């Protein structure tokens, strides 16, 4: 493996300073489940690896009236292990439960998943569906970016040298809302999404009409996608096949997948619609059970 130094700062300021000092030749280590293999394969050759797990803020998991604040390095098992997350941010719990196996979930974080910026990242469509924003610290202070604008290409994102993703924040969940993330994989575990779909819906009190919806897709384009048209067309529509089929069609329209060892264009286009339906149906069922707290 390529030779590097290791640093484990305990504050965001120290981390940002370290990153700035190394001017782009540092890599950030959270759970390490992507990074260590990438260094082993020579995809990255950092001078220094900055372990951010010792920064308390990056391990946060706080739910308040404002919503959910999730430290960027918080491992998956703590996220799906939190009852409130499972109840209110179900799509996020769904995603973190199926990233890798138990061993990976002990270490892998949602922030790391986002920063790795793979098109098939499982937690990213869930975050987009839940209207998450990425909180980024840098030499010039902090800034926020909607998660759907975070990734710019396979393995690429808006982080500038010296910047660090510190948290993901999601707004509070209203009554009659529900969310779900699911993916298609050939096996039942330990696979990369061939297609992933996240959905969040808010229904009226009767559970019969969409108040609003957000649909997000993974593995069907160079970055995870927010399905804007599919999401917006649902608002105000009665819950039913007609609306769902319109959303499926709109999702399929924006899918621009590739043929590779994980799936074909034909397969991914078709399954994009199928998973849009399945994500919506489960989100709707959850919304109907959710009278608010």
């Amino acid at each position, binding site marked *: 493996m390529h030779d590097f130094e290791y640093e484990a700062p305990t504050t965001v300021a120290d981390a940002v300073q370290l990153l700035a000092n190394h001017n782009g030749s540092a890599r950030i280590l959270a759970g390490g489940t992507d990074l*260590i*293999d990438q260094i082993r394969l020579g995809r990255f050759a950092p001078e220094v*690896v900055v372990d951010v797990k010792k920064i308390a803020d990056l391990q946060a998991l706080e739910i308040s009236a404002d919503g959910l604040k999730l430290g960027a390095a918080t491992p998956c098992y703590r996220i799906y292990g939190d009852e409130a997350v499972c109840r209110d941010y179900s799509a996020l719990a769904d995603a973190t439960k199926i990233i890798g*196996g138990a*061993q*990976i979930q002990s270490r892998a974080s949602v922030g790391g998943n986002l920063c790795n910026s793979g098109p098939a990242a499982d937690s990213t469509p869930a975050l987009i569906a839940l209207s998450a924003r990425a909180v980024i610290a840098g030499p010039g202070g902090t800034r926020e970016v909607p998660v759907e604008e975070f990734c710019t290409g396979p393995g690429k994102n808006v982080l500038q040298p010296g910047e660090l993703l510190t948290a993901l924040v999601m707004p509070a969940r209203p009554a009659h809302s529900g969310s779900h993330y699911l993916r298609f994989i050939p096996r039942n575990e330990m696979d990369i999404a061939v297609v992933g779909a996240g959905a969040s819906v808010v229904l009226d009190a009767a559970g019969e009409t969409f108040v609003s919806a957000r649909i997000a897709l993974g593995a069907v384009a160079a970055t995870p996608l927010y399905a804007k048209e599919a999401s917006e067309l649902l608002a105000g529509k009665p819950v039913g096949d007609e609306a769902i089929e319109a959303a499926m069609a709109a999702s399929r329209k924006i899918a621009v997948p590739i043929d590779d060892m994980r799936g074909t264009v034909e397969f991914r286009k078709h399954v994009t619609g199928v998973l849009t339906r399945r994500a919506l149906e489960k989100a709707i069922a959850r919304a109907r059970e959710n009278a608010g707290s």
Partner: protein
Amino acid sequence: MAKKRVVTTTINGEQTEFLCQPRQTLLEALRDVLNLTGTKEGCSNGNCGACTILMDGRPVDSCLVLAVESEGAELETIEGVAPAEGLDPIQTAFLENAALQCGICTPGFIMAAKALLESNPHPTEQEIRFYLAGNLCRCTGYDKIIRAVQDAAKSREEVTV
């Protein structure tokens, strides 16, 4: 070349100091520095679970942990599972159920099964299958491994009652 670091950990209940380079994985340190070769290397990218150990009570693929990250951690490896005399009920169940053939995946399976039973003492068959999906076995078809974990859950219960 980056200088070696001194790492202080607890391994199988004993405080242990070792030297490693930042680029060495915990798997490499266990096997090559500490001579704990019971932890196996199957793929080195977190997809087979052969190198599973417990780190602060959680199962991890030690191939995806830097050795330097284990500073201050409590580690448990296959070498620490059996009591001074005899075997852990999981080990006994693997033997009695013929849940191993070549045996290379066995240490990883036992560590993952231990983590499972400690967090969920009465798992269903599907819960066992889901939890152990991060461990590959190519010999057994898993049938006897699942039965062994079911048996181990039962005998652990008898021990604690």
